[in-house]
């Protein structure tokens, strides 16, 4: 099979263009609703252990656990059935660093927030912290998922510019 160098160069350029286009069109890196569901569960646990009578736990904890189990199963199915899951070789490692920092940072921030609310003598401090963190998740999750996809697309474009 013989092709000219010009044809080979044009073919390589098309390969790169296809990959760049696909990564730009890729859906967000993870379903943004999932961290919100996890924090809704956490908030629910704080609520039932802080506010209602103790016997509520017998009903609420299994119900919340069932809800979280459903969310985990739906998350796995959504990730598996997404339009495109980028291959690990094309994902910007800094996107995962940012994701990890976000998970660890928000989780750690919730603890001093709850302690601070206790110190301020706010009614239902853990539940209040949970509601705030759920709102924080609802606002930041979609931004983070899009940022991760954007970084990956920009990395593909930068790699192409370096080659040229």
């Amino acid at each position, binding site marked *: *099979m013989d092709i000219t160098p*010009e044809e080979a*160069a044009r073919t390589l*350029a098309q390969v790169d263009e*296809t*990959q760049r*286009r696909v990564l730009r069109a890729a859906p967000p890196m993870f379903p943004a609703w999932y961290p919100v569901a996890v924090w809704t569960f956490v908030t629910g646990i704080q609520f039932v252990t802080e506010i209602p009578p103790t016997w509520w736990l017998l009903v609420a904890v299994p119900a919340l656990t069932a809800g979280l189990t459903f969310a985990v199963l739906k998350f796995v199915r959504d990730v*598996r059935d997404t339009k*495109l899951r980028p291959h690990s070789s094309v994902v910007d490692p800094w996107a995962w660093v940012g994701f990890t920092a976000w998970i660890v940072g928000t989780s750690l921030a919730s603890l001093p927030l709850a302690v601070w609310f206790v110190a301020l003598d706010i009614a239902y401090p853990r539940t209040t912290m949970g509601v705030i963190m759920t709102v924080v998740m609802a606002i930041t999750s979609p931004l983070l998922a899009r940022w991760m996809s954007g970084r990956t697309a920009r990395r593909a474009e930068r790699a192409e510019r370096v080659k040229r």
Partner: protein
Amino acid sequence: MTPRLDPAIHAPTRLQIVSLLAAADEAEFAFVRDNLGVSDSVLSKHASALEAAGYVKIRKGHVGKRPRTWFSLTGEGRAAYTGHVAALQAIVAQSGLSVLPG
């Protein structure tokens, strides 16, 4: 070993499909079709040929009640793509050309 052009993925549409899948763990039929600008029948034909060559794995499932199809490269397909691209790069490098804009 010198990289060689692979006739199974040399055709432009097949190489486009394989390059798209090389950037993905898995990609859905409609996403591939829309991004490559090919018809359902063209994509089905090439995907089946690539599956027969052992380069592409096809998974069928449902989203809600709608049937869906996903493609992914097999290890063999990924190796063939890497070898094919390396062969193209070698041809370009020998000539002193750089990659042309698409």
